[in-house]
């Protein structure tokens, strides 16, 4: 029992929570949302890129899931079923969106303490550039990266969600990182040159 006197649902399996949700238990569905929201955000973000609409689309996914709970047969893992819905919903949202608007403003993250304003500026610039390169990766690579880092899933969990062999997941992540590292090294070299020029001036 929790503080509100309701039975704790956190120990229940996804299938049990789905069954309870279908019986009208609203807290069971809330628990499902809390448990899987990171996966949905990761997938939506991988398809849509950065932007305010990611949060709205992620919520739309759960609305759709709730309305379609009756059609979930349990022959696939709930997370896999959710992944398919999230991907379709994000693809539809991307179609609705204009191609040339890929905002990357929300990529600005908390700066480390004691960082100078110019250092922070370059750091943010670097992050924006990296975000752009990440958005240009192949969709499979983006999805596995977001599930690994945004949703904090293990290789095994990603393999189960995407119904792929674990070796394939590792290969995707490896290739994606190699690609991003190449861009990062190029960026570091150009930043070093710029800093050297400023120093000489």
């Amino acid at each position, binding site marked *: 029992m929790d503080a509100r006197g309701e039975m704790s649902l956190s120990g229940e399996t996804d299938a049990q929570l789905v069954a309870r949700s279908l019986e009208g238990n*609203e807290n069971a569905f*809330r628990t499902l*949302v809390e448990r899987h929201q990171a996966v949905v955000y990761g997938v939506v973000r991988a398809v849509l890129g950065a932007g305010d609409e990611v949060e709205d689309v992620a919520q739309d996914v759960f*609305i759709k899931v*709730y309305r379609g709970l009756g059609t979930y047969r349990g022959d696939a893992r709930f997370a896999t079923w959710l992944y398919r819905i999230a991907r379709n919903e994000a693809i539809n949202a991307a179609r609705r969106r204009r191609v040339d608007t890929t905002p990357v403003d929300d990529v600005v*993250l908390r700066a480390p303490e004691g960082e100078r304003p110019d250092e922070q500026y370059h750091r943010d610039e670097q992050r924006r550039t990296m975000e752009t390169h990440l958005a240009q990766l192949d969709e499979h690579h983006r999805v596995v990266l977001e599930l690994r880092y945004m949703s904090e899933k293990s290789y095994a969990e990603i393999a189960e969600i995407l119904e792929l062999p674990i070796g394939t997941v590792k290969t995707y992540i490896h290739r994606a990182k190699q690609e991003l*590292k190449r861009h990062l*090294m190029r960026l570091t070299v150009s930043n070093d040159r710029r800093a050297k020029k400023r120093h000489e001036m």
Partner: protein
Amino acid sequence: MKCEHVENKLPFYVEGDLDAVDRAGIDAHLATCDACRTSLAAYAQLESFLSDRRTLVPPASRTAARVAGRLGFGKRRKVLRALVSMPALLSAAFVATGVLLIVVGNPFRILLDRFTSAPRLHATGWSEAITRQVVALEHANEYVLLGVYLGVFAVIMLTGSWMVLRHVREQ
């Protein structure tokens, strides 16, 4: 170990996802290779960039609350609670009174007789009209009385439900 081999293993090295033998081989190579050390630094920087992405996910409770709000979870319960409270209680009271009047009709008729005998002597205008209505009702049979009560019950239920729904929609 050759640079190409080390380069392929560096992402896993940074993640700590290598066995002891591979790890020792890479450590030995890095001690003597500047290019691979630069590559390792880039992978470490990339790892830091990617690890920060977890902060882009909003708190789970916030998402759950917003989804619940959009699905009308709280509201539905409120409407249900409101529908079974005031209008239903009032309607039940009316029905109970109606049944009581039918079952225990005589005291009511006696009471009506007392009230209707006096106005007959002094009534004028609107009071006389009301008195006639009451007298007519007093002579009416139980089915008419039941019909009146069921009508009042329906009006209270509909009005009450409409008020509750309007209140919920405004929130």
